[in-house]
């Protein structure tokens, strides 16, 4: 690798080349602040606009689904506009976590796995539900069975992208536990294991259309969302800490 000749393996030795301007961490800070900004927009899009959180009921007939879209079609379409503009923020957040993971001593493998899992998960886990809801909202006169199909496809896709995220979580947890650079604290790895357990429980959303294990259930949705919120806040705070602790002018080893 010719690139590695320009950038020595050891992070400490990777101080910026002599031709460089004084080392600054502005690039890291720009990218970091996209993380909270994106999840703020994410909240606005998914809660009041798309109405995916809290989820519409799975146990309503076609009439209920149609009245859902009749009530919310305007905000759903605005929500997808915002999402289409902003969902790249997910790539920034995930890419930046992978970047910090690449600074660990546990090697690049899990950083790449995290990035891959999360990047693929964006489509089924975030975009598709909004597209399906928009497709139902743009033509309210669709046949009821088609509306029902879009409703289910959107929600099951949103809830069912478990594999992408579980893989990323597993990579994140193992990488932290093996890391000796202490980029992230060990307890964050344990919190991430809760996330995997949550995803295990969430499998029931594809099986049961009503009750505590449905996609709006107390066990699968509400508890899972509470754990996700705690986890996401911790990850964000620890990402800030990792950003602050990274010495200016350094980069991950090749």
């Amino acid at each position: 690798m010719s690139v590695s000749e320009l950038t020595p393996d050891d992070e400490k030795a990777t101080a910026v080349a002599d031709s460089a301007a004084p080392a600054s961490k502005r690039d890291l800070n720009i990218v970091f602040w996209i993380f909270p900004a994106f999840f703020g927009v994410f909240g606005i899009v998914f809660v009041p606009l798309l109405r995916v959180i809290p989820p519409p009921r799975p146990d309503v007939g076609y009439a209920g689904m149609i009245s859902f879209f009749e009530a919310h079609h305007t905000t759903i379409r605005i929500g997808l506009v915002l999402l289409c503009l902003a969902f790249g923020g997910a790539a920034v957040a995930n890419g930046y976590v992978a970047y910090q993971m690449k600074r660990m001593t546990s090697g690049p493998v899990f950083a790449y796995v995290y990035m891959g899992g999360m990047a693929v998960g964006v489509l089924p886990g975030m975009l598709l539900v909004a597209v399906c809801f928009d497709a139902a909202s743009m033509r309210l006169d669709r046949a009821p069975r088609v509306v029902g199909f879009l409703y289910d496809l959107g929600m099951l896709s949103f809830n069912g992208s478990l594999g992408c995220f579980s893989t990323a979580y597993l990579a994140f947890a193992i990488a932290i536990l093996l890391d000796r650079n202490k980029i992230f604290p060990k307890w964050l790895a344990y919190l991430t294991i809760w996330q995997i357990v949550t995803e295990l429980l969430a499998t029931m959303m594809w099986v049961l259309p009503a009750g505590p294990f449905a996609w709006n259930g107390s066990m699968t949705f509400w508890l899972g969302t509470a754990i996700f919120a705690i986890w996401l806040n911790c990850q964000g705070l620890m990402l800030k800490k990792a950003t602050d602790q990274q010495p200016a002018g350094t980069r991950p080893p090749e």
Partner: protein
Amino acid sequence: MTAGVDDLPRTSNVRTQQMALWTTAVALVILLIAYAAFPGFWPPMSPQLSADQVATFYRAHTAWIRFSMVTFNLCGIMLLPMFGVIVVQMKRMTTQSQVFAYVFLSATVSSSTIFALADIFFATAAFRPNRDPEIVLVLNDLGWLVFVAPVGMALVQNIMLALAIYHDNGAGAIFPRWVGYFSLAVAIAMAPSALSVAFDSGPFAWNGVISFWLRNIAFGTFVVVMLVVLRKTVHQQSVDEGPFQ
């Protein structure tokens, strides 16, 4: 090709990048042909067509739609090698932490998965054109929504490239500075097509001048310009690393 350096291991990095650029160039030409062959783009299908009109359209043009979708399917993601070269070149920038390169890569993976989805919807609609028109209509809608509107990943790619070039202000800058502004301009040109999910007619609808033509021409121009720029950049890398080391 590689500035007089033959088969040294380190030149293989430059060679693969050159091959990646050629792959994308060839794929782009094929994609333009497929694009020209897709009857739904001449003119772009209106969101106001009825279910029967859409179903009739698919029945009338089944063969051409299938041809163009098969070609999109095969060659759409072959644009990816050029984006891989951009990541490699961004990682060569010495004055920064490489964080923009990682974010660019992450956005590239996501945008590819989405790009791959749109033609699945079009192709499914064309697979059995005698389906219930309501089903053909919804597949067509989903295809158009996914094809035109989700520009967020492309925005992040272009903005991150622009930021990286802006911060790459040392003596050995990888890209000329205008490339950063150009990248930003492409992002601005593509952004309004996100509005296509909320408009059923006019320039912002998915068949509109802004959402369809401006967006697609901007993206095509970006690929062509970056191919030319990257060709020079990779050549410069081979000059920098080849004979002098």
